[in-house]
């Protein structure tokens, strides 16, 4: 099952990479830089997913005090920090050629940076607590708190006037040409599969280490 999941994810990522590099035409305005979107958007989705897992597992750990939820919560928090960091990095790489700046003081960018910092804090609290059980509890509490930022990140482009473009895919419809939509969808699925594999592996590793 594990080998199948890892193999399937690797295959999906390969197809996604192929479509991003060769299956997608350059954009009329962004040119070749549009290809960064195929990493940036899936990374942001994975950050939301990891944050949701850290929130759910954190809340369940606080309620039931079952170490298994802590293993999952720890994996979720680490991956939320990783993927929100990747989102920021790819956003900056895209921003310099397209917007002309590495960073803009924009609600979406700042709230994503806040999300990243909150998960860094979540991991630090766990490591620096004066006893491991307290560290697990405090880190779960921060994970619950940090998740409150996720809707703010997502809806920041709707609530505030921002430089960052609004959502291209929403309940109101899809504002993306099919030749861009397919590579984006494949990469999104591939990244969510990668997130699931990494979550499972990290949680398994944490349980083997018997740490928290």
């Amino acid at each position: 099952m594990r080998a199948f999941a890892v193999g399937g994810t690797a295959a999906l990522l390969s197809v996604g990479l192929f479509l991003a590099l060769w299956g997608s035409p350059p954009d009329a305005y962004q040119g070749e830089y549009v290809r960064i979107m195929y990493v940036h958007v899936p990374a942001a989705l994975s950050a939301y997913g990891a944050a949701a897992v850290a929130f759910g597992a954190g809340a369940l750990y606080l309620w039931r005090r079952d170490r298994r939820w802590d293993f999952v919560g720890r994996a979720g928090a680490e991956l939320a920090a990783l993927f929100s960091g990747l989102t920021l990095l790819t956003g900056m790489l895209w921003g310099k050629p397209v917007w002309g700046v590495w960073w803009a003081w924009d609600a979406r960018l700042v709230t994503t940076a806040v999300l990243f910092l909150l998960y860094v804090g979540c991991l630090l609290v766990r490591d620096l607590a004066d006893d491991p059980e307290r560290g697990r509890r405090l880190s779960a509490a921060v994970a619950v708190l940090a998740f409150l930022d996720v809707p703010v990140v997502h809806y920041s482009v709707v609530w505030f006037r921002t430089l960052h473009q609004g959502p291209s895919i929403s309940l109101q419809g899809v504002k993306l040409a099919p030749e861009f939509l397919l590579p984006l969808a494949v990469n999104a699925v591939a990244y969510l599969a990668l997130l699931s594999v990494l979550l499972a592996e990290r949680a398994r590793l944490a349980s083997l280490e018997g740490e928290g």
Partner: protein
Amino acid sequence: MKAWRRVAAVARKDLLLEWRGRDAVLPAGSFGFAVLLVLGLVSGGGGKAAPSALWVSVLLAAVLAAGRGADREGEEGTREVLLLYPGSREDLFWGRWLALCVVLLVLAAGLWCAQVLLFDAPTRGAGVLILAGLLATAGLGAAGTLLAALVAHVRAGPLLMPLLFLPATVPVLLAGVRLSEAAASGAPAGPWWGVLVVFDLLFLLVGPALFELVVEG
């Protein structure tokens, strides 16, 4: 003992200790004043920079003030004693929150006066500023009470406090600055009242629930 009496007793204890020692208001207020001076110096001290300087100084002073109550209990070893008293720990949260709100209001009022003098900032729209200050204090008090309890048992807690507090309270900073600017210029406030209210509601709902779990022995 009724819940409100426990809340009042905890708030009274914190405020009495603060009144006798003044070890939160004075250091945090002085620090906030230093931040105002530095921001005034680097920005040239124009009226345009005044709202940002005020709210940044209030937020940074709040980081120091919020941690002080929990530090005091740690130093004097009274935290565990307080937890042994019968009654809900939620009352402990509300008592600390009340005391911290009073401290934050004093700090904000002092820093606002300093900002008006140093930046020659307009006092027009003082009613809006007072209402924004009250709403911001309620939210900052809840976030500060929760996070101070959270870092109380963490090594390098005073270093972690700003790392958690500043990102979590960005909405208050942003809303405070925009509302102050709108009050000074007479422009519409936009969505910023809503941002403050939602922030307050979230922290006042989530704060007590998480506080109970965080202070467990």
